């Protein structure tokens, strides 16, 4: 490129910055003066301005998240819960807490019995509207199902990604994290999601599909054969499982 061409290239960068609203002060003035004298740069300036105006109309600039804030907060909290649960030392503290609780329980029961005996009239029972209770149970069941699906989705997405090959074995892939998380989810599924309950009846088929795939993953080895992973991926594709999980999560929170 000639010297003249190089100098002009510098002006072109400044013209872009000017049209993008990034130039100020003397540099802006100098560039404006150059535009007066250079029809090529003036045309370029007008085209960049038109591009910037077109981008300003892009719907993505004003798009709202397709789900409500509570859903996002739930997702973040579920993820943080999963991270906490995956830390083994936390399990140690939990086990210690349970052990202390079991030891202290008989003492607490005796104390409560003594206090009850000392109290004069028993407190009146709180009246609970049956319908309100059912609504509350329904909301809780749905929230727990959404948390379960969010964690399951993370596992499924990881399965669809390209995993690392196992260093020691040919045609094997590293799936340790997915296997452990699936085992944990399978173990907790019955506690989190009641498949027989009314609240989740319309979601039952997808939840069963998710559970089945997670059970298959849980049965794999940390270092598994690539064709086993491919089989699982095909199964997920055939059932369009990821898409169903995402749609169902939105449906449950809507």
């Amino acid at each position: 490129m000639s010297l003249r061409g190089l100098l002009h290239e510098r002006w072109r960068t400044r013209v872009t910055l000017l049209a993008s609203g990034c130039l100020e002060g003397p540099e802006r003035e100098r560039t404006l003066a150059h535009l007066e004298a250079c029809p090529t740069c003036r045309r370029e300036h007008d085209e960049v301005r038109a591009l910037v105006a077109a981008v300003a109309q892009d719907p993505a600039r004003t798009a709202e998240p397709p789900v409500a804030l509570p859903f996002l907060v739930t997702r973040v909290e579920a993820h943080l819960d999963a991270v906490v649960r995956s830390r083994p030392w936390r399990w140690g503290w939990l086990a210690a807490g349970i052990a202390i609780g079991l030891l202290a329980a008989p003492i607490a029961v005796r104390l409560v019995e003594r206090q009850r005996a000392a109290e004069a009239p028993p407190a009146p029972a709180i009246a609970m509207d049956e319908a309100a209770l059912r609504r509350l149970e329904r909301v809780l069941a749905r929230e727990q199902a959404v948390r379960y699906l969010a964690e399951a989705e993370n596992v499924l997405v990881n399965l669809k990604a390209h995993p690392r090959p196992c260093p020691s074995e040919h045609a094997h892939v590293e799936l340790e994290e997915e296997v452990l998380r699936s085992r944990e989810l399978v173990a907790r599924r019955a506690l989190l999601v009641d498949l027989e309950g009314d609240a989740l009846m319309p979601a039952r088929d997808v939840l069963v599909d998710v559970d089945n795939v997670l059970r298959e993953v849980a049965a794999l080895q940390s270092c598994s054969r690539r064709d086993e992973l491919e089989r699982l991926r095909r199964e997920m594709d055939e059932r369009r499982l990821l898409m169903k999980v995402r749609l169902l999560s939105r449906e449950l929170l809507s």
Partner: protein
Amino acid sequence: MWSNAAVDVPDGELMRRLARGERDALRPLMERHHRRVYRIALAYLRNPDDALDVVQETFVRAFEHAGRWHSGTEVGPWLTRIAVNQAIDRYRREKRRRETMEPLEPGDHQERLGDGAASPEQQAHGRELGARIARALKALPERQRAVFVLRHYEERSLEEIASALGIRLGTVKSSLHRATHELRRRLQGVWA
């Protein structure tokens, strides 16, 4: 639903609470910043599901790394930096897995990019424009795309972009110029 008591709490105080492990501080912080983070991610990735994942990952990281936030810096740009890095990471992962990824329904995400308040014609125009810009942006190299998005979707100054991406000011200028030049070439006729 949300506690009004947290509305007036400054971002900095919320960050200090997060650093102490108080999860209650997440909600007001997300309430203030989640839309902006979502739009940055959407502009970069052009897929609402991926953008939502970036929002989630951004706030998970904000919680986990709140202790590293310096009280002298603004929270907004700090979150922007996390969001852009998350979007770039996600884009790289998606690129690797694209061949095996199950596609969503055709046109699924584009349908949601339109402005709900606009007329059907405006929505159709917006969708078409959005789709063309999406294709053109996706063709840009990662850094050029990030610079362009931060300038024209987030309206950040060149200095702020340099700080958010950890690159020199000169690199920001040349990246913005190259990105603009390439988009102008690819979107020729959109504004005619």
